[in-house]
């Protein structure tokens, strides 16, 4: 187990290096730069800025310099906001994103799974059709539509919640709802189909033949076996939610990193693009590792081996 995790962490470093390299060169291949804007800078000033940030060096030298820096966990200074480091940029945006993201994750698990179970147990009856109708809408409607419509209804019309910001605890409702709506729908559909498949298994008949109580049959024998595909998607979902959504953060004016990431691209803020990409990739890989470890707990047939890494 321990060696497996060490192995995986090693692999993650290799993957991260590949991501850094690819992103670095792709980013530089895109025309423009941090100091190119509509308001032309004097050539001397531009040259001075390029020199200050090392942008006048050959690209491979810039690359090696950057690699050397991130090895010390220094993601560098922002090219766009003087005096702001990327580390502090992430540190400022992360708490906001993390709060809404984690709440959304909780909603996805706490609502998506039970709704899927209810639907499966009432197959083709009204609770099933109701849940599946809403879930289909949830999967089909883009989150920004959910966000804007819910702002209009709950904030403007009903006045139950603020339209933007997180100053009030009620401010969390809409962003979390908009963030998690798609995934609640997705997870409830997945849980339903997976549980329906499990309920057909021979060992479910065995469980009934043993005279077990309904709850025991459902939770101990049914649900656990049907959660495997759900756990599989939850890894990337968690990574996705806790790294924030540009659209949602923009609509609700939340100062999270999802928003910063997109802004950094339009700004050609090289270090910010790199830093947030690395950060996102690392979180995604850690989540996938956690999912793989959860598998072993859920399904004893899965063994962790070096080969699997």
């Amino acid at each position: 187990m321990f060696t497996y995790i060490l192995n995986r962490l090693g692999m993650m470093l290799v993957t991260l290096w590949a991501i850094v390299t690819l992103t670095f060169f792709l980013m530089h291949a895109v025309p423009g730069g941090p100091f190119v804007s509509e308001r032309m800078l004097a050539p001397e000033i531009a040259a001075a800025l390029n020199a200050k940030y090392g942008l006048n060096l050959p690209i491979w030298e810039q690359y090696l310099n950057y690699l050397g820096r991130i090895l010390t966990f220094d993601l560098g200074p922002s090219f766009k906001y003087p005096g702001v480091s990327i580390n502090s940029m992430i540190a400022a945006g992360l708490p906001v994103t993390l709060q809404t993201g984690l709440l959304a994750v909780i909603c996805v698990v706490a609502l998506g799974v039970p709704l899927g179970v209810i639907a499966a147990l009432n197959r083709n009856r009204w609770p099933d059709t109701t849940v599946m109708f809403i879930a289909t809408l949830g999967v089909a409607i883009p989150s920004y539509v959910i966000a804007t419509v819910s702002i209009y209804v709950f904030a403007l019309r009903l006045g139950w919640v603020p339209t933007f910001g997180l100053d009030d605890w009620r401010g969390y409702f809409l962003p979390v709802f908009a963030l998690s709506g798609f995934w609640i729908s997705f997870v409830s559909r997945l849980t339903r189909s997976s549980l329906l498949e499990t309920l057909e298994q021979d060992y479910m008949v065995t469980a009934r033949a043993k005279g077990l109580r309904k709850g025991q049959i459902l939770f101990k024998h049914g649900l656990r076996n049907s959660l495997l595909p759900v756990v599989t998607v939850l890894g990337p979902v968690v990574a996705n939610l806790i790294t924030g959504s540009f659209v949602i953060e923009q609509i609700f004016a939340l100062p999270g990193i999802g928003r910063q990431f997109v802004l950094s691209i339009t700004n050609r803020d090289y270090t910010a693009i790199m830093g947030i990409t690395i950060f996102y990739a690392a979180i995604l890989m850690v989540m996938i590792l956690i999912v793989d470890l959860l598998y072993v707990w859920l399904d004893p047939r899965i063994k962790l081996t070096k080969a699997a890494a």
Partner: protein
Amino acid sequence: MSEPILSVRDLTTSFFTRRGEVQAVRGVSFDVHEGEMLGLVGESGSGKSITCMSVLRLLKAGGTIKAGSATFEGTDILSLDEDALSDLRGNRIGVIFQDPMTSLNPTLTVGEQVMEAVRRHRKASAAEARARAVELFELVRIPSAAKRLDSYPHEFSGGMRQRVMIAMALACDPKLLIADEPTTALDVTIQRQILALLKDLQRRLGMSVILITHDLGVIAEVTDRVLVLYGGLVMETAPVRELFARPAHPYTVGLLGAVPDLRDDTHKRLTPIPGSPPNMLAPPPGCPFAPRCVHAMSQCMAALPPLFGAAHQSRCWLQHPEAPKVDAVHEVAA
């Protein structure tokens, strides 16, 4: 013979599918006596498994018991509520299924799967349940029982898994054990071991067993009495020796003719039964076997024969006193 412990009367079960009503069991009656091993034999779709799953009310979706009764130890199982029924299942009546590969939950240890049955029906502490599970594993001869409790199903071979299934079914000393093709999915050598184990356990524990199979060899080896099913009906029932010596129904004769005899060195060809089983969506009004029967008469197509006889019953018009005499039906296959 003593009072039957299970008495099934006119059991009728249908499956409602998109294509219509599949009449899987069409009025089956039989008794199981104390300490008896009753064999239910028939080809796929004859209704043998559905009969037993109906008795336990473990039918898959769409299956409905339309009529009949199943009296076990004085109570009609078919009219019990779900709670009372679950008190009975796994407690007074144990079940073993065909495929031990899929009938065990892959994510729970085999010990847990046995212990949960013990804890469900007996007020047993975790330690008592564990001790009982060890005892059961020893009973079904799983080597190093105590150690193997914590293994998962995938760590066992097919035969060992079937032993686990048997241990699970016997967890609460059932009065009746229903074994639904318990050896079909196993290797031939393992089949014999499992059969011998079942027979031995039946004798030692004094329970009754219903053994469902399509294998006449299995029937001959371990059962006391046989019920031959075809087209959702009992075609013939007799004590096992009587059935093999003097089969009275042309279908039974056909079944026996399709079994290879290894002691016979004349290289006699096996005689298959021509035709195919009836369509249970629209079963024929007469004898379901008539279209495949060499002795079929116009009467056979027109009306369903009753069961003739007492200890040895046969659902065939040839048994009617006024029927034409066919020279010893049981020699036709030879």
